[in-house]
């Protein structure tokens, strides 16, 4: 398929990128790793008139961490850099779980976390763990900056709250807290390179042996990464045991709204929501108690 004709810019400041984006208006797209965009373009599903690469903006690929304020991951940070960051591995293992199952080495050397979020695929692997960990995203435009919780961000396949002219500049994770633990589990037909058929992110807070807070997000089983609020609620006040797990995982399966496609049937996806929810809760619980000691 013929690649559409487009202008290409690699501005060296965020301001330049923002004003270009504003100026070119509809048909202008920012690009990070291009691993989603280029695939769409070569299949004729995306026909940008202008491409603005963010990769030449200095500092946008920073990862910074401080124990009081948490983690900040820049919009052009590559997935490969996230995987090798010991601070992330220590404090946000659920994010590592997601990133290491994504694509393959070559793609991870190009792709970004921000790109994965902005692309807004229902199966995006990073969305469930980031959402359960209360991630926020910073958006900038010529009119200013704003910061949104990621849990409000997704609106449908490929649709987000981001407005025309906005660029995501960074992703933030709150400081790690004692007594909390998170996990991400996903399943697909092939263990090598594959797209998730189901993904489940869980974060829990455990106090005096019972769950006092819970967030559960289901990937690839609805038009957006789905908060399973009923399941979350049913976990509160309960200890970790088979009964709890069964109750909550059944509820999660019930809350999911999967479709049948070539990757899996709706039935199978529902069953897997239950299995993965159980496993992710268990692991999140273990991680929360590990932090106590």
């Amino acid at each position, binding site marked *: *398929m*013929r690649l559409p004709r487009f202008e290409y810019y690699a501005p060296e400041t965020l301001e330049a990128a923002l004003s270009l984006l504003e100026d070119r208006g509809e048909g202008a797209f920012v690009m990070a790793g291009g691993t989603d965009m280029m695939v769409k373009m070569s299949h004729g599903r995306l026909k940008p008139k202008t491409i603005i690469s963010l990769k030449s903006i200095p500092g946008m690929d920073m990862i910074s961490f401080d124990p009081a304020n948490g983690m900040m991951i820049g919009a052009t940070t590559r997935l490969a850099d996230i995987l090798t960051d010991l601070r992330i591995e220590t404090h946000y293992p659920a994010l590592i779980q997601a990133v290491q199952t994504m694509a*393959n080495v070559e793609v991870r050397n190009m792709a970004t976390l921000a790109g994965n979020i902005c692309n807004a695929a229902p199966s995006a692997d990073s969305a469930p763990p980031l959402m359960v960990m209360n991630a926020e995203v910073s958006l900038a435009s010529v009119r200013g900056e704003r910061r949104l919780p990621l849990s409000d961000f997704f609106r449908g396949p490929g649709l987000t709250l981001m407005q025309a002219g906005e660029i995501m500049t960074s992703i933030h994770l709150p400081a790690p807290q004692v007594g909390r633990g998170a996990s991400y589990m996903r*399943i697909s*037909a*092939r*263990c*090598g*390179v*594959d*797209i998730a058929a189901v993904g489940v992110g869980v974060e829990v807070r455990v106090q005096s042996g019972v769950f006092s807070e819970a967030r559960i997000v289901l990937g690839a089983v609805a038009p957006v990464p789905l908060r399973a609020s009923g399941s979350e609620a049913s976990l509160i006040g309960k200890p970790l045991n088979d009964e709890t797990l069964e109750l909550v995982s059944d509820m999660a399966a019930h809350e999911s709204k999967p479709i049948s496609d*070539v*990757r*899996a*049937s709706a*039935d*199978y996806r529902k*069953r*897997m929501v239950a*299995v993965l929810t159980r496993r992710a809760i268990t692991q999140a619980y273990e991680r929360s108690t590990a932090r106590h000691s």
Partner: protein
Amino acid sequence: MKEYSIIGKDVPRTDAEAKARGSALYTDDIRLPGMLHGRILRSPIAHGIIRSIDTSKASRLPGVKCVITSDDTPKIKYGNWRLFPETQDEYPLAVDKVRFIGDEVAAVAAIDRDTAEEALELIEVEYEELPGTFDVESSRAEGAPVIHDYCPSNVSVNRKIKYGDIEKGFSESDYIREDTFSFQAISHAYLEPCASLAQVDLDGRITLWTSTQTPYIVQCLLASTLGMRENDIRIIKPYVGGGFGGKMELRPWEFCAALMAKKTGRPVKFTLGREEEFLAGRRRHPMKIHSRVGFKKDGTLVAKDLRIQLDGGAYNAMGPTATFLCGNFGAMLYRYPNYRFLGEHVYTNKPPASAMRGFGAPQSLYASEVQMNIAAEELGIDPVDIRLKNAQVSGDQIPDVATISSCGFSESIRAVAEMSGWYEKRKSLKPGQGIGIGCYSFISGGVFNWFNTQYPFSAAEVRVFSDGTAHLLTMASDIGQGSDTVLKQILAEELGLRMEDIRMTSADTAMTPQGDLGTWGSRVTLMAGNAVIDAARKIKEQLFGAISARFNLNVIHHVECKNGRVQATARPDYGMSFGEAVAMVQKANRGEPLFARGSYTPRGKGLVTPAFGFGAQIAEVEVDRETGLVKVKNMWTAHDCGTVINPRSVEGQLAGSIQMGLGYALSEQMVMDGGRTVNVDFADYKMPTAMDMPPSEVVHVDTYEPEGPMGAKETGEGLASPTAPAISEAVYHATGFRCKDLPITPEKILKAI
């Protein structure tokens, strides 16, 4: 085993460096001045009459140089089974009718690929849609749509085999087992998509560079469909990135490239896209297999009644051969004193299936092997022991087929059982873990001359020079399996030269000796290898004569080529360098160059093959009982390919086979919605990746095949069969789920347990 200097050694492949560096030229890498780019318009419907085609808008698009439909062609049918012209059912471009989604309707050549692509959208085709049929039952039903007028039943080929007394066999059986199996289509998924580049010379002759396994077949069929003479067509096979049976016929883009080059006077290149390959490409036959087997109480096989229906898709392609071979494979591995086979090749409105690695064996042997495992369990015999009881051995005769000249099957079973710790693991594995066995036998090339070639099956020419070098010319086609390396090794061994002393030209129909039927059926090492030896021996005769005369040797002396010398074996000082010996022969012949032709055609070798490979494989798996996901933890293989000419090559074949077998067993399938292939990219066509490969160990059983070059036979395709049944049995062992319709998906496992 005989001591060799190059045979049996890990000689690096001659193409390895070029491929690793990226300097190997594949067809799509070749660019010629003024070259045009072709694209094909394919049918969007599964079955219909073409009412009209209007190409005028497309022709007017700037940059478009040529648009053709079947009206621009001689409308001559082709097909690989030239011996039976009624089976030749395909036109390069659809004439009046389309029969599957993807059927080739028109072609465009333009100054670049994008322009050609745009022009396709401007071609207006009016179809009258006809009802289609998408599985063998509905194709064979009363009143089913007729896909080809010549074949109102939609059954285009049937094959019967019968020996012994089947009724008596069953009446004498203590235990009879009857099962039905079904198989999905899978893709060859070779990494190099099909590509062809045609150039026409001033005399109107055509040169076609093409990604093919069978240059000679393409040469002949391209000539006949264009109404040209064979020798006016030259086929050159550049580096090829895999074929697996999917590139062994004349293909429409080869025809279109040639015809459009003729029409425009400019080179024309076609390179298929991956989606096109998945949507319309050849595939492994979906099949229905009904098998009834009878045993004695002690596990002795008595009778087998096998019925197979192949879902051939819209054209015969290599389906007739697959139909024949299914019947032969059904009677392989074990001794079946009473056997009956009925195979039917059925048309449906789907992309044609064709040859694919194993050529009917993966399906046929899956059924055999799974039934063997069921019988073992029900008769209370270990799966390994029941196999040993019935295993074919050297000297066994398969009625009307062949005598097995060498067979290391029992040795393979014993070796694989031992290396895997079979007996121990069968008892002691934890729930969710399992171990299973699958076996295979395969042909080393076919005997049946369906192509009706008038040439030898394989040929080689060897030229030797006074500088101590040799030039080997052969039409054998290296498509990545490594035949260039292996044939060079064979020649180097015969002539006592080093690999680097040999120049090689292969697979160019204007330069390399006629003929060779190409790369399929695991035929190349045995057949082309024998041709090389034949040529080399003729050269040696002359060299030995020269030595004998020069040193006045008693006629009883044995002379040899060794370490770059030609010498009397008992008196190495009576000898000279290879180059000097060549010079002497040349002098004696007043300057005539020294060269020889060699050939091989199997004769008196029955109807199927000159030699059979055998082997056994064991898989250990772990099944997640909640998700249904199967993890293959380990694979063990012991096999008999005769003399191992290049161990690393053989291990490469094994690794590739396991990768394919893994996909066939667990994840690969062409998902169909009626006649449409739904999963047309690698995101949704679940081919295992390097990350999915299990650890693997192998033992080569030491045998010697008298009919093979230096004792060698096949290793390319046989190994494609055992992996799926081995995994299937291991999954059964782990979960109690016995899969009779591949692939073994997590959903099927969960439903069953």
